[in-house]
């Protein structure tokens, strides 16, 4: 009885996995590009992780594009955590199920490149947002922030705030290997070269997880009692660093800088435990990448675009321009983005 039950359960698990996993070498369901205007188009939107606020915003933008354009169906599907293998599987499953286009935020620039080429070989339209692949095919546009530039701007701001007498700063990363993390780190170090009085004393990985970022930031504060600023290059890193500084009682000595505009990060900005954040435009990324995918399916070609990064402080938080980016709605921004794209 015991063996039969175990066997049945294992078989069910295997069948379930096979059904979800998608078989290789099955029928080529993908449609070729060049559908006529008005024919129904299915686009798969694949973020890096579905449970990070930033990607929720990209989803809002993507859904706005899908509803604004005609005859577009959006399938939003991504890994629940930072898991490169899982994301590759999702892309391949979408290809198998026969989508017309894919809008992808690549978890790893190198690892996702082969599957993007696979998609292109099948004639599926591909656009990327937030993070592209390496090598990036010419016809695959990227809608992302210029992360290097944003990080350089952040390094300038931090250096200015620390002052001319200089001091120690620390960096908390989130996903080494992804284009965004690599570029923000590169930009930050590059920018600091122009400020020799600032010393980067610690670079650690918060794993895009609040608990880890908090522990790591706490240990950095212990290891470097003279540190004057911590730059969390991603929302969880920033929130974790701010919590750590607060708990160590060092809010007068250490300022925290962040990236992105998650609700709890905004609260900390208002409370003063985070000094400034670099806000991207995830809504626009999602919107533009889906719209571009539809255009490519319908025979056009689309160029990459820098979706912009703005440094926001407590003072500039409530200005209309910033609010439009942080708290977008489809009605207001949908038509604006459509006009911009032309």
């Amino acid at each position, binding site marked *: 009885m015991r063996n039969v039950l175990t066997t049945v359960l294992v078989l069910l698990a295997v069948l379930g996995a096979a059904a979800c996993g998608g078989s290789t070498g099955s029928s080529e369901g993908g449609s070729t590009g060049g559908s006529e205007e008005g024919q129904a188009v299915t686009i798969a939107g694949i973020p890096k992780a*579905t*449970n990070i606020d930033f990607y929720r915003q990209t989803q809002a933008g993507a859904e706005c594009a899908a509803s604004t354009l005609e005859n577009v169906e959006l399938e939003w599907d991504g890994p*629940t955590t930072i898991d490169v293998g899982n994301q590759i599987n999702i892309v391949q499953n979408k290809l198998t199920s026969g989508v017309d286009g894919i809008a992808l935020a690549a978890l790893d620039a190198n690892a996702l490149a082969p599957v993007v080429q696979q998609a292109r070989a099948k004639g599926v339209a591909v656009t990327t947002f937030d993070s592209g692949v390496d090598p990036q095919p010419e016809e695959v546009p990227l809608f992302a922030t210029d992360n290097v530039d944003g990080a350089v701007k952040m390094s300038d701001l931090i250096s200015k705030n620390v002052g001319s007498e200089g001091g120690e700063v620390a960096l908390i990363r989130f996903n080494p290997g992804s284009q965004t993390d690599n570029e923000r780190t590169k930009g930050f170090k590059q920018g600091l070269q122009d400020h020799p009085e600032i010393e980067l004393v610690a670079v650690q990985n918060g794993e895009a997880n*609040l*608990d880890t970022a908090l522990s*790591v930031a*706490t240990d950095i504060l*212990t290891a470097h009692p003279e540190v004057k600023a911590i730059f969390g290059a991603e929302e969880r890193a920033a929130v974790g660093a701010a919590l750590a500084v607060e708990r160590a009682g060092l809010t007068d000595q250490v300022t925290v800088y962040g990236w992105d505009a998650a609700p*709890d990060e905004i609260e900390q900005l208002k409370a003063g435990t985070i000094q400034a954040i670099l806000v991207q435009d995830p809504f626009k990324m999602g919107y533009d990448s889906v719209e571009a995918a539809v255009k490519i399916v319908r025979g056009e070609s689309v160029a990459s675009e820098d979706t912009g990064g703005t440094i926001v402080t407590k003072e500039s938080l409530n200005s209309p321009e910033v609010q439009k980016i942080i708290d977008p709605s489809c009605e207001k921004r949908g038509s604006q983005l459509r006009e911009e794209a032309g």
Partner: protein
Amino acid sequence: MKGKPTETRDSVNSEPWIDGEVDQSWRSVLRSYLTNALSQVATAGALIAIFVFLSIASPEFLTPGNLFNVGTQIAVTAILAIGMTVVIITAGIDLSVGSIAALAGVIGAVMVANLGLPFGVAIVGGVAIGAAAGLCNGLLVAYTGLAPFIATIGMLSVARGLTYLSTDAQPVILPISTQWLGVGSVVAGIPVPVVFLAVLVLAGHFLLTRTTPGRYFYAIGSNEQAARLSGVPVRGYLTLVYVLSGALAGLGGMIAASRAVSGQPNFGIGLELDVIAAVVIGGASLFGGRGTIGGALLGAFLIALIRNGSVLLDINTYWQSVILGVLIWAGVLFDQFRRKRLASAT
């Protein structure tokens, strides 16, 4: 099989219990006691060596502030390791503790934030959710004969999915008044989580060494068939260990949520590996029948020191994974070596 069935029965019913060994001759009892102690001495030795090294290499290491931080950072892992030790002693494994901790933390946070319940009620609620998940694991293992690996891998997925579903994968913010559990301290600055850990370590040790259920756990792990034939209610006790593991995971999840002042849906991903590493490094055998709470605690502290030390000394985080992996090998190899010696001696 280790001992003869009659020996198991006699031992369970009458003999003084020394770390779960069944053989009755005093020489082999002494030898097994020494080898068991030796694996813990090895772990303790490594712990002391790393402690001394860090004290010398990093001036900030040996400060009360840092040591309390280390204690807080490892408290959740160590609490989960208590439950995991008992499960592993029964020759089982619980791969779902990370997911259960996240589920409890998130639901507990929902109880406070959305339902307006007092935090104390939410803590009990979190533990109860953990126990319920553990009950599900236990029933699957004990009554349907599902291998613990498979049963708890299923729960790992189910609990994580339920966590994301319950809050649409958003963190649930807690009021600042709840942070005493994860961040508060009692006399002399000892963090609250460390106090919880100390109490649970003593309770767990007492359970394993001085109570009947404790002896039954070791017996089931040593030789389940023999234990059943001796009249040990195996299924009931197997269910119980998973309930214990789940409940402790629930408590750990609430402590973590309090520390983060929010229920974080992606808490604890991969945590079970740290927990299992702690238990194995501490001398427990994955084949069952041996292991101590003290050993698991040593293992957990070793892991915490390696993580803390890496940041203090600015070592690349990835070396931590390499070192931990090597320590796991060492722990398991030593256990295999010990079992071969024991088998050839009897």
